[in-house]
């Protein structure tokens, strides 16, 4: 079974290049037989990559340590659950995983469009097979073949990095990869539109759902990654501006810009070159992110892959894509001219454009901070660390502007807004925001950025609530409906917009959570059994933790020491929590497993920072139970996860097929055109 997997990769390689040639040649010459052959090749490559993926998973499940990849990312005692995720645990498997996801999305696209958008499909097939071919070349020729054999069979594997042995780590990479790969579809259609010369908005209309799907997965992938960092890295935070975190944020920033700017092109026929550039940039950044994560080029908490020989191949691929796309854009320049101009600075398109510029500004700042250490090392031989202070200094103000725009944009009408009305519409939300700032000031909060975030968040929430209320009222009046049906129909008529507003609410929650971190409280203390540590929450109450004792145990894959703490809130017992350290025997690595007690407003976060008398502890010596704990109160941190849920709901509303709207527009069009 496993051996067949490698054959599958070798067969897939020529077939993907065959499909690429068939797509381009068939499209150029209008040959239906070649195009059909190209389209079939997509299904074939998907099936072959699926076989290869199953083969790798099978090798993990059956402990086939003769394979280098399995031996390095698994061991006999590893939980089956983590063996199942072995496919994306390391560089080699995750490259296969990337390719199989893309081939899956490509197959869906080919199937969906077997009778539609035919003028695009040959080139779409050509572009996607080109990307798949590239990944197959990397897999088979860049010394990262997941089926490479060691030549002997070790008795046991080296084990999976303990930090990856976490529930969130099993779903964070797949979700992120779904986001990365789904974006290849809009990119392929964009390139197809440049190749076939249909440079109107059709490619955007065809792919906007793919764009949303990609954005949805990217967003959730990033949030899951934050969750993993929060639970597993054990320092109380969730974002460290680590190169790999940045790499996932970069395509998110540009995809968010793209998501907004395509609306301008759809509505106003403007920004065509801009959208082409954004789709290209976002696609390159998804490749860059994959490359950065899986090349070991930049040191980071994630740099679990060490092979740098694929760096050049990746750079060459990105360079060729970039040059080819730019040449195509220049070639089609006449067809990409704007049909309209921005009429007024006070218009929704101007607000979108501004949002785009700010998002790109953030992307460039993050990109620069991420690759600067590399550039600097290349130039001076001296690596320079660019840490969180740089990123925070640059990105917090940018984030605040973006946050404000999520409230300002919706209120400004397309084309031109009426100044007087704007003032009226903004008055109450602005006042509400200022009131909230005043309340927090009065309560003693002094962090300027946090205050600004709370104020702007209130402003945005007020705007969104007013939008929903006014929209429903207008709909009820115009269509003569009750408020309930009016609200449902209002959302149904323009799912993208109202779903988008709900997404904005989720974004507000997440930003508020970020601001909450300004009020984190941290206490570090040495404890003997029976001793207590007290920490004051910024919300006014006090937690007292009593250290009850520690127990050690030998688990299947690790030894662990679990400290038990009973928790009192203002002297009232509210429960118990544990915090532990684990020693993974195979990896010979110690990790902390934090204890988290979540409420709606804050998390109590306990880290077992040190066990002083290790040997005594192993022997369960009653006099050797002294520990060092770090206790944190992280206000509002849970709002990130709640915000993620709200974003998911909003995105699903935006993605839901608008059957009703389609029926109605179909009925509308003949009525107008035929003049019944």
């Amino acid at each position, binding site marked *: 079974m496993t051996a067949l997997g490698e054959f599958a990769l070798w*067969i897939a390689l020529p077939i993907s290049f065959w499909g690429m040639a068939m797509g381009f040649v068939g499209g150029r010459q209008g040959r*239906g037989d070649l195009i059909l052959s190209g389209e079939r090749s997509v299904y074939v490559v998907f099936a072959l990559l699926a076989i290869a993926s199953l083969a790798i998973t099978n090798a993990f499940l059956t402990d086939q340590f003769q394979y280098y990849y399995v031996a390095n990312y698994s061991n006999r005692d590893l939980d089956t659950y983590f063996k199942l995720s072995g496919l994306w645990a390391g560089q080699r498997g995750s490259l296969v995983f990337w390719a199989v996801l893309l081939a899956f999305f490509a197959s869906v696209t080919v199937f969906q469009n077997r*009778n539609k958008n035919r003028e695009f499909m040959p080139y779409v097939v050509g572009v996607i097979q080109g990307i798949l071919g590239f990944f197959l070349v990397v897999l088979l020729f860049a010394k990262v073949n997941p089926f490479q054999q060691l030549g002997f069979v070790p008795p046991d594997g080296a084990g999976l990095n303990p930090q990856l042995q976490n529930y969130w780590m099993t779903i964070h990479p797949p979700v992120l990869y779904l986001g990365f790969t789904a974006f290849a579809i809009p990119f392929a259609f964009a390139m197809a539109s440049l190749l076939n010369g249909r440079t*109107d908005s*059709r490619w955007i209309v065809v792919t906007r759902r793919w764009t949303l799907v990609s954005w949805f997965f990217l967003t959730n992938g990033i949030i899951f990654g934050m969750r993993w960092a929060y639970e597993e890295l054990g320092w109380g935070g969730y974002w460290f501006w680590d190169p790999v975190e940045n790499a996932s944020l970069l395509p998110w920033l540009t995809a968010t810009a793209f998501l907004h700017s395509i609306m301008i092109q759809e509505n106003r026929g403007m920004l065509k070159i801009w959208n082409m550039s954004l789709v290209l940039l976002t696609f390159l950044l998804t490749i860059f992110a994959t490359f950065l994560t899986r090349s070991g080029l930049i040191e980071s908490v994630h740099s679990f892959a060490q092979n740098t020989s694929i760096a050049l191949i990746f750079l060459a691929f990105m360079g060729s894509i970039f040059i080819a796309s730019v040449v195509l854009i220049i070639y089609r320049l006449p067809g990409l001219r704007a049909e309209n101009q921005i009429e007024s600075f006070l218009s929704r398109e101007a607000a979108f454009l501004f949002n785009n510029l700010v998002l790109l500004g953030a992307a460039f700042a993050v990109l620069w901070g991420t690759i600067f250490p590399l550039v600097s090392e290349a130039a001076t031989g001296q690596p320079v660390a660019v840490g969180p202070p740089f990123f925070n200094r640059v990105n917090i103000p940018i984030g605040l502007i973006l946050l404000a725009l999520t409230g300002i944009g919706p209120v400004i009408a397309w084309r031109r807004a009426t100044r007087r*009305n704007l003032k009226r519409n903004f008055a109450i939300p602005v006042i509400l925001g200022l009131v909230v700032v005043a309340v927090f000031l009065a309560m003693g909060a002094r962090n300027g950025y946090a205050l600004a975030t709370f104020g702007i968040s209130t402003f945005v929430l007020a705007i969104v609530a007013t939008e929903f209320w006014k929209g429903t009222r207008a709909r009820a009046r*115009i*269509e003569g*409906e009750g408020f309930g049906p009016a609200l449902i129909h209002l959302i149904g008529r323009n799912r993208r917009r109202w779903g988008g507003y709900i997404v904005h609410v989720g974004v507000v929650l997440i930003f508020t959570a970020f601001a909450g971190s300004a009020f984190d409280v941290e206490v570090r203390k040495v404890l003997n059994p029976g001793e207590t540590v007290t920490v004051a929450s910024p919300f006014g109450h006090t937690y007292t933790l009593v250290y009850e004792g520690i127990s050690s145990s030998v688990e299947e894959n690790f030894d662990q020491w679990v400290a038990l703490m009973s928790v009192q809130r203002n002297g009232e017992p509210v429960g118990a929590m544990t915090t532990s350290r684990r020693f993974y025997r195979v990896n010979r690595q110690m990790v902390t497993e934090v204890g988290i007690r979540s409420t709606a407003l804050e998390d109590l976060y306990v880290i077992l920072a040190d066990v002083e008398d290790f040997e005594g502890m192993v022997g369960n010596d009653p006099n050797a139970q002294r520990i060092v704990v770090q206790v944190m109160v992280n206000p509002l941190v849970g709002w990130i996860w709640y915000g993620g849920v709200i974003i998911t709901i909003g995105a699903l509303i935006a993605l839901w097929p608008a059957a009703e709207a389609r029926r109605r*527009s179909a009925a509308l069009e003949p009525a107008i055109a035929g003049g019944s």
Partner: protein
Amino acid sequence: MVILGALLLVGISVFLILQPIVAGREAPLWSSGEEPTEAQFRKRVSLLQLRDAEYEFAMGKLGKTDYEMLRRELSAEALAAIREEEAEAEGRTSADYAEASADIEEEIAQVRIRLRGGSFCSECGHPNPGGSRFCAECGTPLRVPEPSGQGQA
């Protein structure tokens, strides 16, 4: 066993991709008619924008003057798209349908009024918005077909 499997994979793969060329099976080169043309797309967008503008006016984002102006522009755009669409459909040139434009403008207005639950004057045929009691053109009292939810009629 593995060799057999691999050969099978090669065989199936090669068959699937070569069969269209050898047997002359073709993928359709053109879509089967259901997707909108550029003109139809622009028409749809302008009509949706007209609706949006109406909502934005109703929601207090647009002043009356701006709204009127916007509505005129959008109607003109919708009209241009409709003309183009008709030309596409009937293969006429732009000069041929220029004179028909007045009718089309009227038609857009009528369809939109009807969608809104408005009514047409029995005397002069002028379309009036929902809730109107008298014709805006000639002043004739209007028979309102059914009362609207707001009870203004």
